[in-house]
């Protein structure tokens, strides 16, 4: 069979907003968003468990919507707003989800955690006060082999309560996770 030598010629170039920062990046055109984040942008917080869209570990937010970064070509993210676990904390403070996950045992090995955190953030941003069933549904595409999920549900609910007690989110944080127009 014929073998085409594929060199990683960085012939593709996009501009996206990554965790609130305008980011230009050049990369080989076949690369997925997952690969570009991890290999070309040094954002290794986003993990992978299958690279086939089966485990949910690589979830990131594209225009506030959770997507599996292993199934999205980076080329598709031109002019888009991409948010990863690295963008959750703001002004040196952890996001309430991060605080709750840390305090309540929702991260054991921590490998599925980044994908679950951003998926949960999208849920809280969209739904405000999701029920336990809505949380289960939202996280059903993110596999976790350590926790049995219950401490994760509890952490999402604890974060939800904390966020509703403090309706004013820090301005920098909303900008960081918000659309590029805010910057």
């Amino acid at each position, binding site marked *: 069979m014929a073998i085409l030598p*594929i*060199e990683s010629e960085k012939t593709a170039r996009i501009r996206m907003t990554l965790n609130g920062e305008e980011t230009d990046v050049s990369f080989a055109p076949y690369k997925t968003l997952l690969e570009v984040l991890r290999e070309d942008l040094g954002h290794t917080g986003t993990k992978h468990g299958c690279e086939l869209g089966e485990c949910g570990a690589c979830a990131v937010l594209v225009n506030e919507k959770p997507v599996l970064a292993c199934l999205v070509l980076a080329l598709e993210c031109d002019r888009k707003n991409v948010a990863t*676990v690295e963008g959750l904390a703001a002004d040196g403070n952890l996001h309430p989800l991060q605080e709750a996950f840390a305090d309540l045992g929702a991260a*054991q090995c921590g490998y599925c955690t*980044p994908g679950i955190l951003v998926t949960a953030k999208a849920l809280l941003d969209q739904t405000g006060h999701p029920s336990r069933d809505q949380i289960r549904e939202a996280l*059903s595409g993110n596999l976790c*082999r350590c926790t049995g999920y219950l401490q994760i549900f509890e952490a999402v609910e604890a974060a939800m309560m904390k966020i509703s007690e403090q309706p004013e989110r820090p301005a920098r944080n909303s900008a960081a996770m918000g659309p590029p127009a805010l910057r």
Partner: protein
Amino acid sequence: MPTEKDSRTGTLKDAKPDDHDLRVIGAPRRRVDARAKVTGQTRFADDIFLPRMAYCKLLRSPHPHARIRSIDTSRALAHPGVYLVLTGKDLPIEYGILPVSQDEQALCLDHVRHVGDPVAAVIAREELTAFEALDLIDVEYEILPTISDPEEALATPKPRIHEYGDEGNIHKRVSLEFGDVEQGFAEADEIFEDTFFYQGSTHLPIEQHASVAIKDPEGKLTIWSSTQTPHYLHRALAKVLEMPPAHIRVIATPNGGGFGGKSDPFNHEIVVAKAALILDRPVKICLTREEVFYCHRGRHPVLMKFRTGVKKDGTITGVHLQTLIDGGAYGSYGVASTFYTGALQTTTYHIPRYKFQGCRTFTNKPPCGPKRGHGTPQPRFGQEVQLDKIAEKLHLDPAELRLRIVESSNTVTANFLRLGTVGLGECIRRVVRISGWDQKFRKLPEGRGVGLACSAYLTGAGLPIYWNKMPHSGVQLKLDRGGGVTVFCGATEIGQGSDDVLAAVVAEVLGVTTYDIRVYTGDTDLGPVDLGSYSSRVTLMAGNAAIQAAQRAKAMLAEAVAARLEVPKDRLRFTDNRVFDEASPEKSMSFQEAVCLAEAQFGTIGTVGSYTPPKSPAQYKGGGVGPSPTYSYTAAVIEVEVNPATGWITVPKVWIAHDIGRALNPVLVRGQVEGSVYMGLGEALMEEQEFRRLPKNRSHALVHKFPSILEYKSPTALDMPEVFTELVEQPDPQGPFGAKEVGQGPLLPIMPAVANAVYDAVGVRIDEVPITPEKIMKALAEKRAGRAPRFGPSQFPHVDWPEALRVPPPWEGGDGNAVNEPPRAAKTRAEREKVLRP
């Protein structure tokens, strides 16, 4: 120390430890590595990117069993961007986790034994280039007949999958008898005989195995790897690469889930190490998910036959257990796994006479090994389901039956396992109470049911994997002038919280917070050896070593402070980052000042601690598997709903009580219990490592049915039931602050409790795991046809068992030795050590 009075009848006052003085231990607390994990900063092996790094891919056998006639790598080597191609002749030395089964080669030299066995490696500038070049390697295979299961292995001695082992394709056969079990059956009122099958499953850690190796600037080897056992990897690398261990540094990166699946030294680790040494540049490999399925080392499929004699009151008079084990293509931990299918049956209920026969065969499938519970969930399933049947026949409540026969604390069992505290009776009483068992059992409407099951598990293997007299865990402690405390230990963080355990026990002893402590673990250069994160050993062993090191440091500080404050040493208290006289607390100083005083008096403050388990009374051959400093206990009640029209099973609720000894950090303990329940439900209901044959006209090869996460079903967030967890805390003198294990034991009762609940719901016995709707439908059809309402194996095949080693139990005057043991191989221990040296 409070202990359980009489686990059979006595009521137990909640034996809460005297913990009013404890500040760190027992308090729900954020684990020390939590912030790194929730910010994505934890650096897993595949997160390591180094300058000039090359990528490795492995060419794997498409055949389940074949001879390699030739390998031609020239076209791959000529491919642009390829730096190196390795084959079996570059790494011919055999290795394996157990000294008795050194049967793996990093790249198969002339014989492949399962689909996925690696035959060559390509190292290239880009991962994609390496992947492409795999297609350019020409391998000529001579296809051999394959063996798909143990019965076929017993019937097919040739061709042999391995040239070693007990006989033909039998890897290991063991036969042990503790007391005359036939005499036990003669004394029984009823004898029960049941066969069970437990399907294999895999760990499915979300992190795929990854490794990065470099030749460091001094010319030595460093490897970062997702391994649970850096010390054993260290030894395997030294052996295969023929290098002094002192010139190899293994760094176990935090594992993105292990569950036993990263406990063997792996071929890919050895290959990248070799490649980095040759190329003098960093070499990385990250396995694909499909390759992770081929690494496997998961749960052994086990066919079991239980013969159990009981008196009318439920007293067990004897048990005879036979296990037939599907080992897959390599030894791995298999010899230990074989013994484990029989070792722990005696630790829960009093069994006066016990016979165990186990047989592990090779098959042409990915090798099985240790998965959470290692060899014990399978027979535990059989024993607990059979007890349910016994209870019904004797008209006893299953909880009452178990309470009558629960083994007592501080007993030596028939097979010479020395038990510590046994909180099982209390666990049973708690789950019965909180589940409302008495209102539910045999009382719920058709289609709903409850089931109960119990278990025990090791708190650390009592013997190391290779024979030696050295400690199983070591800790070094450094105290600095800034008041900082640094813990160095070989322990490996796989998500279970071992770093947090180390920090917590040191913080407690020295009266500081866990935030004041830095923990450096899993690095063979920096820390003393800890044998690894397996057998639920780390909390007890590394924890005890850390306590010893901390107490030694505390003694130095106390001496210096006592002299300065002019108070007796034994009146000094270390709390809240201060050291003070408990009689007159105003006489005090900060922890940092205390360290400076001690450093002025003694020089640099560094201490060490070690832990070696107590010697086991089990002296017979095979008695090395099963001993532990102490055992954890668990009881679970599970409620199920079964739709009789479809066989569909749902699990709405689980109640579980675990005898933890003491919960060092209750948040993490609960997480381990719930995680075990989750993984147990996966095994009970859906997870299976299945293989199928391709049609005869298409090679007839034995291939993995579904090596992908999508098709290998595991429970999602939607499937997880409510779990009510109770912790029974009776500190065990062997454990650090009384702690026992929690990582594995709570998984064990889940599968049998589900099976027993299914019987309560629809009146059919599923004597097989996983319990699927299809099997329930078949059993219901049997029931409607008036046959035995059951699904499961009916026969146990004939095995030529060796003569049993006869070991009289303690109550028959036994001393832990076999009365008929042939003289052991005339090797002295010194010679054995030499054999085992890398």
